[in-house]
């Protein structure tokens, strides 16, 4: 782990990996779109509306997965003061918020024709809405401090507290009555979805994951470069300052 702790090494490694992840994401997302829109069969009950699943379900997986990544990075940041951990958590947060928003909007667009309502305040939908607000709260909290280190620490604590929401989301469909269907892919006894729909779903999900990996790396690289720019500017001020002091001293004498 500590081999990758070094930002310089991370920059080298991520610079080499970035185009591959970007290309992989583009290929899988394009293939996923094709499979979802042209190859997958209509559902025997839901008809063509089932195609929303190929967006909704991967974005829901990403919404929770990204939060897991963010919480794990926050734990590493708090425990080991890993230099890249805070950067990773902060780079992940806006992406997680985006996936969660996508999940909520597509869920709404699926709910109206299938359930007859855009929204219900049941456990699954509400806990995912809470997840969205956790992301927003994290972003706001991190940026609410003048000292970035303190902001990062407060954000990390919030991210860890929010982890309690993840099992609630996962098991909400079993614990409470809901319009939302129960787990049909990651469940005991295997998936209940047919192969013809499962394959496009997984292709799309892999595309989403590669996209996230690409964007996360790019955003982490941006944060590292930004800190170098800041440090260089501080150095600039320090380099200029003694001259100014000398000049001031000269004008006095």
């Amino acid at each position, binding site marked *: 782990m500590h081999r990758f702790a070094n930002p310089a090494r991370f920059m080298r490694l991520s610079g080499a990996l970035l185009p591959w992840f970007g290309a992989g994401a583009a290929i899988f997302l394009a293939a996923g779109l094709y499979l979802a829109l042209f190859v997958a069969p209509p559902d025997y009950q839901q*008809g063509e509306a089932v195609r929303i699943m190929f967006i909704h379900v991967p974005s829901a997986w990403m919404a929770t997965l990204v939060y897991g990544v963010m919480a794990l990075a926050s734990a590493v940041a708090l425990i080991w003061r890993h230099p890249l951990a805070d950067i990773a958590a902060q780079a992940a947060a806006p992406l997680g918020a985006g996936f969660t928003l996508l999940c909520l*909007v597509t869920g709404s667009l699926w709910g109206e024709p299938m359930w007859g309502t855009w929204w219900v305040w049941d456990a699954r939908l509400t806990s995912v809405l809470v997840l969205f607000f956790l992301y927003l709260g994290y972003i706001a909290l991190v940026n609410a401090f003048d000292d970035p280190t303190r902001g990062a620490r407060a954000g990390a604590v919030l991210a860890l507290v929010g982890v309690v929401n993840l099992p609630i989301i996962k098991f909400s469909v079993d614990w409470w009555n809901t319009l939302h269907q129960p787990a049909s892919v990651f469940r005991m006894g295997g998936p209940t979805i047919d192969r013809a729909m499962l394959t496009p779903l997984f292709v799309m999900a892999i595309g989403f994951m590669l*996209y996230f990996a690409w964007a996360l790396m790019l955003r982490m690289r941006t944060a590292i470069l930004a800190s170098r720019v800041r440090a260089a500017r501080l150095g600039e001020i320090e380099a200029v300052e003694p001259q100014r002091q000398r000049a001031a001293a000269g004008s006095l004498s």
Partner: protein
Amino acid sequence: METVAHYLEMGGYARFVWPAYGVAVLTLLAMAVASVAGWRRQRRLWAALEAAGQVRRRASDRR
């Protein structure tokens, strides 16, 4: 042409299916564009510092 129109109807669910895909494309595109723009902004700032001789070139992360 008729088959295309038939396909676009999505069995009567067009007004739910297409917005879902539209929102997905827009969201992923927006996050990608914002991330790339952020990187380019920092690259520009860094290049300006380099040009001013404030920092040394780093071969490792030039892109």
